[in-house]
């Protein structure tokens, strides 16, 4: 150091450690463990804070999920929806058949004994046949 700083040089030469300051016994030795405990506690409280922030959103998501499950599983909603879907699908099938076969070919198909097994395997939704009598069906099949 510069010669003009005689006193400062003298103090430095005395080589007193840490300018007269000291620490409680074992303070520095135990500091890592204390600090890691603080950090772990901080991490846990951060995780709790995140849960607290997300909680309302998670609750809302859970409510919507329950509503969706109830909607798709309750018979009231399911029956009307399924019947509507079944009618649409039958209409499409009949349209396709009528475009590929004429009436005589269809009648031959139905009356042919070899085709009985085909018609037995068709699962017809009973809801579709509601209100239709055997006479109606006979009329439809013969003419």
């Amino acid at each position: 150091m510069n010669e003009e700083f005689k006193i400062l040089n003298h103090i430095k030469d005395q080589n007193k450690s840490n300018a007269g300051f000291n620490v409680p016994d074992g303070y520095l030795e135990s500091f890592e463990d204390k600090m890691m405990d603080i950090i772990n506690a901080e991490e846990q409280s951060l995780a709790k804070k995140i849960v607290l922030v997300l909680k309302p959103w998670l609750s809302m998501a859970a409510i919507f999920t329950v509503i969706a499950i109830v909607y798709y599983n309750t018979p009231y909603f399911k029956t009307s929806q399924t019947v509507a879907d079944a009618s649409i699908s039958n209409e499409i099938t009949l349209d396709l058949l009528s475009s590929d076969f004429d009436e005589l070919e269809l009648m031959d198909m139905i009356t042919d004994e070899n085709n009985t097994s085909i018609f037995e395997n068709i699962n017809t939704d009973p809801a579709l046949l509601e209100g239709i009598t055997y006479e109606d069906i006979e009329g439809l099949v013969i003419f």
Partner: protein
Amino acid sequence: MTSREYTDAELVELFKDKSHKQMAFKILISRYKERLYWHIRKIVISHDDADDVLQNTFLKIWQNFDSFQGKSALYTWLYRIATNEALTLLKKKRKSVQFSIDEEDSQYEKQLVNDPYFDGDEIQIQLQKAINTLPEKQRIIFNLKYFEELKYEEISEILETTVGSLKASYHHAAKKIEAYLKNNLVEKS
């Protein structure tokens, strides 16, 4: 492996790996706690305050370690955080208690003498009182150069100030302290 086997750059890489994060940080604490403690202690003076600031410093380091880009040396980044934390505490304290300059001088001496963790002699007390008369930034520059014997280039990175301005500032501070000590030690003897 012991902490001695990792370089600072390796510690930074190790910290990014989740499974080694805690271990890397523990090594970092053990490597820098003492240097940072004495740096902080000379700014805030009391042990309790230094302990609080050191804890806050390491907590900030833990929270922001991922953002350390390695543009400067790790220890200068750590010193910068420690310095900022220490100055934040001083600001808070100054807001809560306000003294006139004379009162502050005598309060400071009382605080030193009554501190159970200060056992300096008369010359050390006068030196601390002299340092306390300096403006905050000059005081930090003086401490880093005089006590911790850091190079001007290192201090420049910590305080983000040019080397030229640091040299001038240190010289000015040393001159003021020398004059203070000359007056006060002569008066007492």
